[in-house]
């Protein structure tokens, strides 16, 4: 089965981001295909490069980054949702004249068209809500 995943919740704030992470792991272990993971609304916070959870807690940010690298997954963060919430990669930071960027390199910034395309090309889209 070809899945795409829509993540709408921020880590810690809601359980949904962690549930999405575990779902992606389980799907991959069961030899399913993850076509794309799309981060939208507050879900964009999962792609932060600087969030630092306490050391005795699970680091979901690192978890996503390792998962992407381990399976060469396509992680896309909505560019409009991210910019308005203060998450920019280097080129976006430059474009908006900001001093710093704060987005992990395992995530690509792109538009909602990527979610629409993933929907059209996957068997199932699973949403993990806010």
């Amino acid at each position: 089965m070809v899945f795409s995943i829509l993540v709408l919740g921020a880590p810690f704030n809601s359980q949904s981001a962690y549930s999405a992470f575990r779902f992606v792991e389980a799907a991959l272990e069961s030899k399913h295909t993850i076509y794309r993971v799309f981060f939208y609304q507050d879900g964009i916070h999962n792609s932060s490069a600087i969030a630092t959870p306490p050391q005795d807690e699970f680091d979901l940010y690192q978890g996503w980054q390792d998962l992407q690298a381990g399976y060469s997954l396509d992680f896309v963060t909505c560019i409009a949702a991210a910019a308005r919430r203060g998450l920019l990669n280097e080129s976006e930071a430059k474009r908006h004249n900001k001093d710093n960027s704060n987005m992990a390199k395992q995530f690509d910034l792109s538009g909602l068209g990527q979610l629409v395309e993933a929907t059209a090309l996957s068997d199932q889209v699973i949403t993990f809500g806010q």
Partner: protein
Amino acid sequence: MNQPKTKKILIVNQSAPYSSGNAKESLDLALAAGTFEQDVSILFTGDACYQLLAAQKPKEIDSKNLSQMLKVLPIYGVESLFVDEQSLLNRNIRHIDNDLKITKISASESRELFQSAATVFRF
């Protein structure tokens, strides 16, 4: 981007217009899906009914007028707009914006809408 095939997408909107980003961000998704020529329907239910009121004045709270954005949906190929009749009744909303081409539907009709959709996005 690959040329996507067409899928039946239902966007369920259950949020009031200006209390969160849901209304705006669901609309953005509807516009994107319309632009990529998907078969998009939007169902307004619960507090999303308030998005359909005429004469909104969101300038007072420095917000963009979402009902103006709803009116451009047909230009992007999104023409199937539905509102849950019972949600309107529950809120005593008798008049929705005349400029919106939107169909009032019953609970059983909205069930059919859900059943016929390949993918449902809920905001």
